């Protein structure tokens, strides 16, 4: 589509349209691991992306940052970022072009902070490098002031920026990662399982920090996790991914009150809630399909507890149920009281 991408509404920061990510298998066939994914993230919003390992949620995030491994490509899709200084067509950017966007407009906090930080480099040098990359003219004093400001945001004494990554505990390293992600004043921060390796109290601290920063700095946030209860606490809207597609999307409030896709129903039940039923919910049997060998009908049909004849025969579309909600199930909306 074009040099004249249609204007986005002012309140939309990110618009992902029909994104697919694929690789070529040994026989030269295209295998899609993300397939027809569309969603928008609004300005100042926290948006959740959830699903099992291999569902395509991290690959989607990497595509947004232009960080797909070279074995992968995008057969289709537009990724539009409605940045403060103009519209950016991420899907058209070369690696060189993405360097202007990555960290400065869209940045990421990874799961294992230790993998993202250079172990033999002082934290201050790593953050300083990121700052200089995007503000080449900045002097040493400016960098120091900026680092102190960033450490203030994430609640670490500025003096500790002289330390090495291994001198920080797991929770503190994750704070350092967040400081690094904020170094170039991005408008969108993507957190990929940012609290998964942490204990419950540390997780609460980090989630609270992200929430405070989002409010104070006017950030938008995409939070990727398999833990739906974490998303319930932090996000405004969520998309549930399954086998490379969005299975269901909606506001946290509606989607959790009445999940419409059987996969969402089981996923929600998989994390027993304190104060909820004192028993294990039924497990989702089996494993997700091999992307090279997707079922012909609904991709979830082989594992679905409510499967009918039509499900194996015909792939359901992601159908809008109201302004905010859509579900990829032939039978949505389910009658009230039947969503178990």
């Amino acid at each position, binding site marked *: 589509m074009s040099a004249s991408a249609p204007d986005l509404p002012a309140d939309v920061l990110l618009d992902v349209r029909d994104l697919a990510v694929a690789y070529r298998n040994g026989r030269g066939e295209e295998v899609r691991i993300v397939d027809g994914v569309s969603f928008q993230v609004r300005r100042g919003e926290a948006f959740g992306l959830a699903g*099992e390992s291999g569902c395509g949620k991290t690959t989607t995030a990497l595509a947004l940052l232009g960080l797909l491994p070279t074995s992968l490509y995008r057969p289709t899709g537009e990724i539009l970022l409605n940045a403060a200084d103009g519209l950016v067509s991420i899907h058209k950017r070369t690696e060189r072009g993405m360097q202007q966007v990555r960290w400065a407009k869209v940045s990421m906090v990874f799961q294992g902070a230790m993998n993202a930080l250079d172990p033999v480099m002082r934290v201050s040098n790593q953050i300083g490098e990121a700052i200089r990359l995007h503000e080449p003219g900045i002097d040493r004093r400016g960098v120091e002031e900026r680092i102190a400001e960033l450490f203030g945001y994430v609640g670490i004494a500025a003096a500790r920026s002289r330390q090495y990554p291994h001198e920080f505990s797991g929770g503190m390293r994750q704070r350092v990662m967040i400081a690094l992600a904020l170094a170039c004043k991005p408008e969108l921060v993507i957190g990929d399982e940012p609290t998964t390796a942490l204990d*419950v109290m540390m997780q609460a601290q980090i989630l609270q920090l992200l929430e405070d920063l989002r409010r104070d700095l006017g950030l938008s946030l995409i939070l990727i996790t398999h833990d739906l209860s974490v998303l*319930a606490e932090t996000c405004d809207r969520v998309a549930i991914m399954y086998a490379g597609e969005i299975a269901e999307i909606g506001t946290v409030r509606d989607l959790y009150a009445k999940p419409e896709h059987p996969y969402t129903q089981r996923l929600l039940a998989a994390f027993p*809630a*304190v104060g*909820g039923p*004192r028993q294990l919910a*039924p497990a989702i049997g089996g494993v997700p399909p091999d992307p090279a060998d997707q079922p012909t009908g609904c991709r979830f049909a082989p594992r679905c507890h409510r499967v009918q004849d039509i499900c194996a025969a015909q792939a359901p579309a992601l159908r809008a149920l109201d302004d905010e909600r859509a579900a990829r199930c032939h039978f949505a909306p389910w009658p009230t009281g039947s969503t178990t």
Partner: protein
Amino acid sequence: MADREHDVSTTATTPLFEVRDLQVHFPIRRSGGQVARALDGVDLEWRRGEVLGIVGESGCGKSTLGRALLGLQATTSGEILVDGEPLEDADLRAVRRRVQMVFQDPYQSLNPRQTVGAQVLEPLAIHGIGARGADRIARGVAVLEAAGLRPAARFWDRYPHELSGGQRQRVVIAAAMALQPEALICDEPVSALDVSVRAQVLHVLMTLKRERGLSLIFITHDLGLAWALCDRIAVMYLGRMVETGTAEQVIGDPRHPYTKALLSVVPSPFPRDRVRREILAGELPDASRIPTGCRFHPRCPAAFDRCRSDDPRTLAAVAGADGHRAACWLVDG
């Protein structure tokens, strides 16, 4: 063993394990004699047929406790009783046959160069159970299938790297079950697993418990899991239990400020259930610098003068709640 007849009369009431004032200290290298007190006065009772949850943050000592119960961790002082008998006098080999351990990371327990079949046969060979050959193989097949690896023949000749994380954890459970133990100590058995696989593995464990009357310990930081699965829960903080009781008592009516704080930050999938979050600042203190007085007081929102000087050493009984105890000066005995 000599008192076997005497034991029979008390078996019904003697806990499977009883721990009294257990201390495990680690010397800190080049510190001039300083120690880290990983366990610092643990009292605990694990009853027969019970699912006991040991809950706390990383570094609180919960895994050290699990290992100490099996004699896999040298203790500094205190007592561990198995069937009322001191662990140091017990035949450790026999104890480890009766009580098996399942760790978080299946790779920690599986030999990467052994096939699935060999992994489940090995414990049988070590303990000389069953006749070599067909008898042991039949036992191995049975435990693999009970752990949900069906048909076992499909998995028998595979190596750990050829399996998914969930399948590997099932092999670990099968190997642990091969000796027909009375009890399993599960140390974060599902926290490394993906969401749907996690539920599958938990179902396997709970089915084994139901069908074989296993006693279980779940060491976990997941309070939701503890609530769903455990009969009783012990909350641990910095080397000591701070609250114990039935799941209903500890989760439904928490008395220790630490338990209350933990519960308030557990993410809930039901936004309307959200209570005010009591996010504790800072991190778990270092086990080599356990605060004086109540060890929780520097992070406690309810601390007062006495907490800074006096250690609430014993768990005080919560009035009117049988078996519910908390180590806090605000709980009156």
